[in-house]
Structure formats: structure tokens, C-alpha cells
């Protein structure tokens, strides 16, 4: 069995289902919740937000290094004298360095989202009813000994149980 799940109309019903599934012995991290809107309070305990910020900072630093190298190495390799300014003009270069820093941070943020949110991968368990507003609560690849208990828990939450083979 690929998945066992049920669809709920609102967050309260979904919450009750999650509690019953947990009571049935399924660890929090194994419970699958799909929705067409963010549901606060479910992601507790598995946040990767800090890592996203770190990746963005890293991207910014790479951008800064690139901007610094691009301007200073160019000006050193092909010295242009304009307006009685020094060859390496830090005041002017700061603008390019700033823009490259921010570009690096922005691109790194998008890259981190793709990786951490596992985007771009083939779809696993999904039901189109989710995009119409229903909340899917279930378990992917449940262990055989869990199935009976899970079905009872989801039915007790007031929804029809669906299975994906």
C-alpha cells in the first residue's frame, strides 16, 4: 500500500484526525498533511528555517566575493584612468559589490527552497481535492500492522478512508 489517507473539510477536523492518528501510534513526522493553504502549528519540531537563512547568507557572501573580484581584478588588469580617480575605486565598486551580494542571496534563497521543499520531484501521494480546499491527513507507506488501527482512527475523525495502491 502506497498510502492511507482521508480528506477533511476544515482545519479543526484535520486537527482531530492528526491527534487520533498519533494516538494510534504513528509518529508525528510520519503523518502526511496536504493543504492548499499554510496551516500553522503542524510543522513544529522540524523547522529548517535557520538553514534557509544560512544558505541565503552564504549566497550573499559568494555574491560579494564575485562582485569584489569582478571589479577589482578588471580594474587591475585593464587600468582605466577616469576623472582623476584611483584605478581601483572602492566607492564606485561598492555599488556593484552590493548588487552582486543581494543577487547571490536571492538566488541562493530560491535554490534552498527547491531543495528543502523537495520541489521539482515526481509527485508522490496526492489528491486533487486538496487544491479545492480539502485537507488530506494520512500516512505514506504505512506498516502492515498499522493499517487497521489507522483506518479506525481516520474513520473516528469522521471521514471516508482512501487508499493508494
Amino acid at each position, binding site marked *: 500500500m502506497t498510502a492511507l489517507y482521508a480528506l477533511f473539510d476544515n482545519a479543526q477536523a484535520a486537527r482531530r484526525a492528526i491527534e487520533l492518528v498519533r494516538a494510534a501510534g504513528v509518529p508525528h513526522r510520519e503523518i502526511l498533511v496536504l493543504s492548499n493553504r*499554510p496551516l500553522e502549528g*503542524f510543522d513544529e519540531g522540524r523547522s529548517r528555517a535557520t538553514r534557509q537563512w544560512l544558505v541565503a547568507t552564504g549566497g550573499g557572501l559568494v555574491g560579494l566575493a564575485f562582485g569584489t573580484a569582478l571589479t577589482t581584478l578588471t580594474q587591475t588588469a*585593464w587600468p582605466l584612468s577616469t576623472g582623476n580617480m584611483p584605478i581601483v575605486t572602492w566607492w564606485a*565598486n561598492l555599488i556593484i559589490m552590493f548588487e552582486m551580494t*543581494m543577487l547571490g542571496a536571492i538566488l541562493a534563497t530560491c535554490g*534552498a*527552497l527547491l531543495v528543502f521543499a523537495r520541489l521539482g520531484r515526481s509527485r508522490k501521494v496526492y489528491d486533487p481535492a486538496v487544491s479545492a480546499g480539502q485537507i488530506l491527513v494520512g500516512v505514506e507507506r504505512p506498516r502492515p500492522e498499522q493499517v487497521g488501527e489507522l483506518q479506525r482512527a481516520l474513520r473516528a475523525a469522521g471521514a471516508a478512508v482512501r487508499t493508494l495502491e
Partner: protein
Amino acid sequence: MTDRAELARLDDLLRPLERTTWRFYALVAGLAVVVLLGAVAWVSQMVIGFGTTGIAPPIMWAFYITNFVFWIGISHAGTLISAILRLVNAGWRKPVTRCAEVITVFALMIGAMFPLIHLGRPWLFFWLVPYPNRRLIWPNFRSPLVWDFFAIGTYLAGSVLFLLLPMIPDLATIRDRTTGVRRRIYGALALGWRGTAEQWARLETAMQIMAVAIIPVAVSVHTIVSFDFAMAPVPTWHSTIFGPYFVAGAIFSGIAALIVVMAALRRSLRLEAYLQPLHFDHLGRLLLLMSLLWAYFVFAERLTTWYGNDSAEIAVLMQTQRGGFAPLFWTMIVCNLVVPVALLAPRRLRTIRGCVIASCSVCIGMWLERFLIIVPALGHKYLPYRWGTYRPRAVEITITVATFAAMTLLYTLFAKLVPVISLWEWHGGERLARSPQPTAMPEKQLTDMRQ
């Protein structure tokens, strides 16, 4: 929220994507004709040369750079406003953010075209790009024009991504409601989005980071555009307040453009239930605030020029106060200050219609402001033999009109392909877990508080 209400909302917001009327085709055809005329005018300028325009020494930056600064200013509507509203978690932002972000992307694309149109030989634009060309001349990183390239490039890339990231869940919703080729296209664009708790958390964090990053970029872009002027030894341009003055003006015109677009979308797509008078009221207040801030900058700028009493600067100043440019200057004051204050300060006049009239007035006034910064100063530089004036000809007028049509056309096509109001952001965060129980305060802390 019931399932029925959710479906009704989805139907409302996805209606423009699913049903097409003859009015849509007529609008697209009409706008495409105007854009085509603009393209013909541009090609004629390339073939005949710049002599076909009114642009001639000493006023080499005329309509085109006016349009460049104007459109870059309009682009500040979206990403900047949206990012600020996201960061402060303003509840009323939900229907506004995407409308605004789309303006940024298209206005930037149009604005960035103008330096190319102004080049005369646009096929050599890559000389601005930093790579060694055949003559081993690298771009001069001290030139504000190269700063423009980097700033606008970064802002455009950031704004496109800032628009696209929160669109992913909506593309998944459209994927699930369509069939055939459309389903495959939207499916590919949705990147396999399922809506897991993990995905939502990562998306919201990414949007926070993007908002933090994009605000300084937005401010830098218009500051750097102002440096195109402030770094030049031209009367009235070499000013230290040009950076913040331009940024304030850009946000001012951006909010005005946003109000006009929102009103047009509200009427044409029947979004009355989503774009409510409350949203116009909030944006109207913001527009009023920016009008006063703009007036403060104009006063500070002109007072300093007048008090300095430099003969070249006074000559430019007087041309705009009493000379040939005075009618445009006083029209600008009426459009940017008198009309917005009159319509937006009294609460009973701050209706949707009042906000739209004030916003149209501000758009006109801000275009005139860009024109008045550029043309009088260039026509009256330090040496009298370089004095001159400028009259636009059909070519640049056609191209200018075509860019407004291009903006409308791009927005119309976008609204046909993607919902202009974010489907998922409408909800805000629903609480799924139990609210945390209040915990007992430690005895020591209680004792400290009592003391």
C-alpha cells in the same frame, strides 16, 4: 471555512482564466496594434537615424530617459510595497500583493528597454555587459550607466523570483482544475507542489528572506537611477538629496499606478468582493503621505538651489517657475500635491473613485516631474553656446504611447494566465495545532516582578 465557500472563491478568482469574452480579444488586438506602431516607430528611428526625433544636442536625454526614469519609478509599486507589507504582516495586503508584484516586473522590463531605444544602435547594447570585447575595453565600473545595468538586472531577477515563488501553489491549483496541454504546462510550472506542511513552511521562510533582500535592492535601484543625474556636472542635478528624492518619487508614482491597476482589475474582472474600498482607503492614505513627502523634497531641493544663487542653477530654476516650462511645472504641482491632498485628505472623498482620480493625476504629475528634471537642465547648461530647447516629434511620442499600451497588454495577458489575486494567501495561516497552554510563571520571576 466550508468547502462550498472555498469553491466559490476559487471560481471567482479563476474565472478570467477559464472564460474568455470577445472584449478580451478586442482589447488585446487594440493594444497590440498600438504596440506594433511603437515598434514601427523604433525601427524607423534605427533606419533613418536620430534625426527623425526631436532629440538633438544639447538635449540628448529627452522623452526616452524621462520614460526610463518614470517606468523604473512605477516599478517600485510592487515588490517594495509587497515586501514591506509582507514583513509587517499587514492583513489587508492579501489581495494587493500579486497585483503589485506584476506591475514591478512589467514596468522594469519596459523601463529597461529605454536605454536600448535611446542607444541609436541597440544591437551594441552588450558593450555595457562586463566581458572583454575585441578591443579589450572593459566596462567602466565608475560609470553610473554600468551601475544601472547591475542594479536593474538584480532588481528584475529578484522581482521575477519574488513574483514566481508565491505563484507555485496557485499554479498547482490551476493544474488540478485543467486538462490536456494546459494541465501539463501548469503541472510543469507547479514543480510538483503538493502542499505539505514542510513545503508551506519552506515557502513562507523563503518569502521572508526574499522580502528582506528585495527592499534594499529596490531602494538602491532608484538611488542609482538618481546617480545618473547627480554624478553629472549639470545645473540642478549635482545634488546630495537626489537619491532619497528619487526613491520617494518612485514609491509615490508606484502607489498611484497600483491604485489605477487595482481599480481596473476590480471592474473588468468583477473582483469587487476581493478588492474592497478598505484596500483603496489604505493605499489612498499612503498616497497622501507620499504626496506630502514628495512636496517636502521638492521644496528642500528648490530652496537650496534658490538660496545658493548660482547663476546657472538659478537660470534653470526660473525657467521652470516663470519661463517656458512654467506651465508644466505648475501642472505638476497641481497633479502631485493639490489634487491628491484635496481628494485624499477628507475622509468622505477618499472613495475608490477619489483614489483613482488622484492616482491618475499623480501618474501624469510624476511623468512631468521626470521631464522637468531632465529637459530644462540639459537645455541650459553652464556655457551659453550649449543652450537649446526640445520639442518631441511623432517618433518618440508614438514610442511613449506604445509603452503604456505594452504595459496594459502584458498585464491583460498575465491576468488571463494566472490569478491576479493569490489564491492561497487569501486565507492567512489557519491554526492546525492546539494553541499552546499558558505555562505557569516560575516563582522566582514572579517574585522579581513583584519587587
